């Protein structure tokens, strides 16, 4: 569903208004390999999603790296070997927590999600939850209830909220698409249960499932009202849902695997690019929580402190330059600091009138990254600082 269609849809719904309430008809689970019959409304939805998928598959935002795709796919198939054949995974480079499932089996996992889940068990829960929407055919149920005007106002609210988040371009399309996939609380409860059952059955640690929720809520609370989460706009969070999940998890606790090591290894090569997108959001408090969680999960301190420095440098409030220098130095004293740390430190020293330290840092950068793209520019800095 494109942004335009979604907006027209929303506007049309507003014009028509919501009044009648017809309860949706009960619907059977989608069986593995099942496709809706031509001529049904469900086939129409599938076709439209096929078109969106065609666009999505060639979008510049899709991460095509085979290793990462294979990894997430393997976890999906571990949850259900039968259904995983019907699902097509798209990892989308967007620094927000979200995952979505279209009726035709197009599953989106945003890179912001992969940066936030701390281990394979948490990822499995998110994937299992989305699979639940597919199996229970929530999209077509949702579509029928919108068409029957049962909850068109609720739909409208989600769509406008999405627009209010300041998404533009294809990000808005993706968000709008996710909003069409926004389900009712009953649907979410069903998917919570399915996701939980699938992950436990696959041998993952049950107690990890509620943790991802709690981390997201902490991030949301830190970020404040100005930066509402995309995820919570399309996945209504309720205390009741979290409580149910926690109760189920504690009954099963201590039996499964967290899969922390394979997860850390799987994202190692991409983490830095995702963090770059993350700091660009300029959501200072929210990103600090993400960084703290990564540090806690055992990712290299040098890299995490470097991005902490970037966060201060980009905010640029009074005193942030000093904070940034502190973070960069901490990064260089730890393992895993990228070469760019030297360059960033050089820029900060130069601006705070410490030319000889700046020169030293720029030299260190060129030594650490002799083939740097911006070598000529950094050399000219060194000249100017003489």
């Amino acid at each position, binding site marked *: 569903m494109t942004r335009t269609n979604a907006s*027209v*849809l929303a506007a049309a*719904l507003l*014009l028509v208004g919501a009044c009648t309430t017809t309860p949706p008809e009960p619907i059977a689970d989608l069986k593995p390999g099942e496709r809706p019959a031509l001529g049904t409304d469900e086939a129409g939805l599938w076709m439209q999603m096929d*078109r969106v998928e065609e666009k999505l598959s060639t979008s510049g935002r899709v991460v095509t790296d085979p290793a990462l795709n294979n990894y997430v796919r393997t976890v999906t198939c571990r949850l259900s070997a039968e259904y995983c054949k019907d699902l097509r995974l798209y990892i989308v480079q967007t620094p927000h927590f979200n995952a979505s499932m279209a009726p035709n089996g197009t599953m989106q996992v945003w890179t912001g999600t992969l940066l936030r889940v701390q281990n394979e068990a948490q990822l499995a829960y998110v994937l299992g939850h989305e699979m639940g929407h597919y199996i229970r055919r929530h999209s077509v149920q949702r579509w029928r209830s919108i068409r029957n005007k049962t909850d068109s106002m609720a739909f409208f609210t989600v769509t406008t909220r999405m627009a209010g988040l300041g998404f533009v*371009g294809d990000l808005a399309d993706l968000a709008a698409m996710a909003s069409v996939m926004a389900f009712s609380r009953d649907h979410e409860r069903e998917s919570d249960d399915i996701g939980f059952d699938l992950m436990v059955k696959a041998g993952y640690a049950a107690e990890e499932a509620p943790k991802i929720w709690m981390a997201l809520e902490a991030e949301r609370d830190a970020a404040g009202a100005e930066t509402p989460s995309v995820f919570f706009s399309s996945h209504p969070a309720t205390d009741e849902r979290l409580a149910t999940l926690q109760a189920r998890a504690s009954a099963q606790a201590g039996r499964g695997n967290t899969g922390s090591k394979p997860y850390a290894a799987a994202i190692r090569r991409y983490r830095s690019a995702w963090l770059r997108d993350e700091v660009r959001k300029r959501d200072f408090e929210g990103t600090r929580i993400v960084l703290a969680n990564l540090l806690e999960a055992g990712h290299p301190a040098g890299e995490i402190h470097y991005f902490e420095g970037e966060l201060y440098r980009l905010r640029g409030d009074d005193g942030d330059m000093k904070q940034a220098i502190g973070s960069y130095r901490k990064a260089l004293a730890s393992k895993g600091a990228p070469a760019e740390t030297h360059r960033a430190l050089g820029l900060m020293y130069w601006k705070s009138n410490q030319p000889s330290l700046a020169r030293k840092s720029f030299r260190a950068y060129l030594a650490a990254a002799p083939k740097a793209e911006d070598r000529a520019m950094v050399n000219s800095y060194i000249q100017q600082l003489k």
Partner: protein
Amino acid sequence: MLTALSLQDSKCRSSLRVVAVLVTAFVLAGCTTTLTESHTGGNAADQSIKLNAANARVVLMPLDIQLSELTAAGLEEPKADWTEAARSHVIDALNAEMSGRGLTLRQYRKPKDRTRQRRDDQIEKLHSKVGGTILVHHYSPMNWLPTKQGKMDWTLGSTARQLGNDQNSEFALFVFLRDSYATGGRKAAMVASTIVGSLIGTPVAKAGERIGFASLVDLRTGDVVWFNVLYSDSGDMREPEPARAVVNDLIAGFPI
């Protein structure tokens, strides 16, 4: 912040919207119409281009087509069965019309190799940008670009030659069609959503109307040598005969 950097010229877009509103207003007034306007262009702009039906090799690119139903509430519900029916009727009609003129269309074969798939995909995307640009800067005189001097002078560039080699063709025919049908009693809501649609700026086919364009690209040069815009509020592409009428209008003026 975005407008200044978006490559789309917002002013030009707004004028397209006005056209869309006017066209719709015209339709709502109750007239039955079919509007087409074909132009020729490319380097051959001065001398009108003409294909030799007996030996011209023309590949038909995958159709970009969608049929929808407008529900009473004004939702556009895409119909898979209608679209599949229309796709096959349109392809049949195109083949029949062209062979009536002595030309056999070649079917596009998707390359097996990923690099070539990607290249063709980029060509199709570029074509849709070029098509949109032709609509904005060529079909709307108020958006004419002075350096073009009124000529339809756009190209897909030299990469088109590789597509031509792979498909063993000298020309490619691109077709874009959108069509929608109303369920009963939707006219009032239609007015409202037309206004909304026009504000958002993407032409959306309204009840029982079809919009589309066809273009012919010379794959040896990449030049768009012929282009036709279709707007029609009659003809039902779900049935073979009316689909043929739509195709007839769409390729009116096809240079053969």
